[in-house]
């Protein structure tokens, strides 16, 4: 009971402490968008007779004809009411756009992260157990390769081989076959929704669409995860309590998995948190290559068009997610290493 209370108190403190940071993000993005060169009105005034009148009209629609402090107050007021503004690029409210696209990005990122962990943890462990062996070098080579090759190159390569040449993968456009019916939107996660309605064929199809972009992303984040696992496990394996454990004749398996790994996981958890947040915001290229209707490509399109509202909404969303992820990691710390929650 006291542990739960402890966790609750930590969560509350954490959330409170993140409020000024969030406000800073809101102010900073707001100002940054207005300082950046590029007038959205000039970009969107594409009519055949795009004169000053039409541009003035667009500025008025976007509220840009008012003084900046007033614009900011209005923006914050809208935020308080849960209104993120209107996107010029899609013509929809930003809130609705993000809500529709968020599950797509989350599903891809989570799946890619699980895939990456499933590969990185064993690789890191094997590399740590046999440092400087052939296996270790092999792992290092794979990780370097994953980081060096830009994601869009990996993506295009995978498409070329598995879709264009071999025809094994479905066409790389979006989350679901364009001719197939989408499941009813229950959670927005297609894999979950298809399971809930019991459509196994649909589940397989959605899984097929997901696998190439997820592999692309997983390869890219393999390196930090595997390298951190290796480094942290190496440090732990060299410590006194491991020597003691070995000297009392415990099996290797028990020593590594139960004692060493658990102690080595703490830095890995931190990295997972960072990697996850980065993936969510930075998978723009993967989303572009696979026509994935996620938030990354949405924000990039808006940024290129100087469409203020979606960019501000996107940055705020990522900031909130970052706070939430850090919080979760913090709580997980306590579970992995009970000493932390006692403080």
């Amino acid at each position: 009971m006291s542990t739960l209370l402890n966790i609750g108190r930590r969560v509350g403190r954490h959330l409170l402490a993140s409020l000024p940071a969030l406000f800073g993000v809101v102010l900073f993005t707001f100002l940054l968008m207005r300082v950046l060169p590029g007038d959205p009105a000039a970009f969107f005034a594409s009519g055949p007779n795009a004169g000053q009148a039409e541009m003035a009209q667009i500025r008025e629609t976007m509220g840009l004809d008012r003084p900046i402090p007033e614009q900011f107050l209005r923006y914050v007021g809208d935020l308080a009411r849960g209104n993120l503004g209107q996107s010029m690029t899609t013509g929809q409210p930003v809130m609705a756009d993000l809500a529709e696209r968020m599950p797509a990005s989350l599903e891809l990122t989570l799946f890619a992260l699980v895939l990456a962990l499933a590969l990185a943890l064993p690789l890191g462990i094997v590399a740590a157990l046999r440092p400087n062996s052939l296996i270790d070098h092999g792992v290092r080579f794979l990780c370097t390769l994953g980081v060096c090759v830009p994601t869009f190159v990996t993506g295009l390569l995978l498409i070329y081989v598995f879709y264009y040449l071999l025809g094994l993968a479905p066409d790389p456009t979006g989350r679901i076959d364009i001719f197939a019916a989408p499941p009813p939107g229950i959670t927005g996660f297609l894999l979950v929704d298809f399971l809930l309605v019991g459509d196994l064929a649909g589940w397989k199809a959605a899984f097929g669409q997901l696998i190439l972009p997820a592999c692309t992303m997983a390869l890219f984040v393999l390196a930090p995860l595997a390298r951190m696992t290796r480094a942290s496990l190496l440090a732990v394996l060299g410590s006194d309590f491991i020597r003691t454990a070995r000297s009392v004749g415990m099996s290797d398996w028990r020593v590594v998995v139960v004692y060493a790994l658990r102690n080595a996981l703490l830095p890995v958890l931190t990295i997972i948190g960072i990697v996850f947040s980065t993936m969510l915001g930075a998978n723009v290229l993967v989303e572009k290559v696979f026509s994935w209707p996620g938030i990354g490509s949405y924000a990039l399109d808006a940024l290129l068009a100087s469409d203020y509202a979606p960019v501000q909404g996107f940055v705020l969303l990522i900031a909130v997610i970052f706070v939430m992820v850090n919080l979760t990691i913090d709580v997980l710390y306590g579970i992995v290493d009970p000493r932390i929650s006692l403080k």
Partner: protein
Amino acid sequence: MSFDRFAFTRRQGLKAVLASAAGGALGAFGRLDAAQAQTRAETLRHVLAGTVNTLDPTTPGATRESFGLSTAVYDRLASYGRKQVNGSWVFDFDNIRGELAEKIDRSADGRTFTFHLRKGATWHDGAPVTAEDVKWSLDRAVSAKSLAAGQIATGSLTKPEQFKVVGEGVVEVSLERPDRLALANLAVPLSPMFNSTLARRNATADDPWAQNWLKENTAGGGAYMVEQYKSGQQTILKRNEAWKNGAGGALPYFKRVIAQTVPEAATRANLLERGDADIAIDLQSSDISALEARGKIKLVATPQINGFTAIVFNTRMAPFDNPKVRAAVAAALPYEAMFEAALFRRGRPLFGATWTDAPNGAFPQPLPFRTDAAKAKALLAEAGFPDGFKTTFSFSAGVAAVAEPMATLIREALGAIGVDVSIQKLPPAQMASMEVERRVPFFISAGTAWLPAPDYFLRNYFTGDHRWNFSGFSNPKLDALAQAARFEADAAAYEATCRQMVDIVARDVPMIMVWQPNQDAVMAPVIDGYTYWFHGQVDYRDLRRA
């Protein structure tokens, strides 16, 4: 025809059987049973780079893709015909036929048009099309704050009083002066006809023309109805079986159309080669030759007869305010090399003519710009810059594929005559605002005129203060000629006026139109009937599966 279609279905079905027999972990994802194959044959899948951001083409900020989609969903009073040039279909500006109107009468003085609406025409909801609907739609075009007002004003259509219902199914449009482009303006995507009863039901006090509602909904009577609209992702259309307003009253071939946004050009090319997509018009020009060589697709390349790419001088900024400097640069540019390196010769050159007086009034036409370094040097000295000068050449990152090689060649060629050029690549929004504020001295731009009449071209791109006058050019004589040409009823006098304007543009060089790039439409070999339209988008009503 029905036999062909059966054969197609059976083949697709066989493929599906094979695919499922092959099984395998990933192979099983290609699910396509016979029924789906049937639908697939009757469905057109168009993959595009851009997005449709509104269903109402007149919304400020509407994308080009929105214009294209609206031609299928809405009818207009009139439509251009199409003709075959070098084996491919191109719109025919000189041949306007009725679309929603069955018959169009033009009065002898050219000041009154009478539109007789097609008998029995209906809206998508089944309600009959009335003259009042047409009147409301035209009133909306000139009254609402939308893109339409600016466009159709170029045809002297500006006030609701110009539109009168004169009988059942008859609408009269009157003009103060016989504008040459009045009728043409009623055939563009910005003058769609709306079901006014439905639209008015969704209008509010703040929004009397239902502009908000029509962004997400449609009130049309065109060849296709919107089945699903996901802004920024895809739009699915289904055929309007009651549609009779096409050429010859025929229904379009495809029962369904999927317009899907696929941002990556390489992915669009892959989809076409694998046969999963049917048509794309925005692939990278560097990929086109390779695609054509592999022979799995059909390429229809049409020079964009109403478009151009231009190297622009800001005529309001030194040293380009001096016509001699502009002429010097024009004589130094490496035209052939640019055409080769940037465009792979995929287009119609607008340089290299040999005349001194314009042979005719056509525009755009090749102008007498030729590479001649000695002449360039002499002109530069005459202009007072014997040692050259420094300048910046800018372009938008959005057109980098073409502009980058051009910029490098320009820098090299101008360096030879002493002009030191630094290259500036800007994000699209920034480039747009710098252009509008006229803060870039020397840059690349491109344009398309919806109404490819020489006077419209010259008026829009070389006169006035609006942004399409890229060079900020101002020449009183040209201004006067361009205004006069608009109302010139006599063909010979019109031609003479246009010739004079072409001469001015060739002599003063406010900008150098270098070429008209091809529109490379890539499609599955069985797709037939593709037509290049003035709006540069696919008109789904033209296409069929052969």
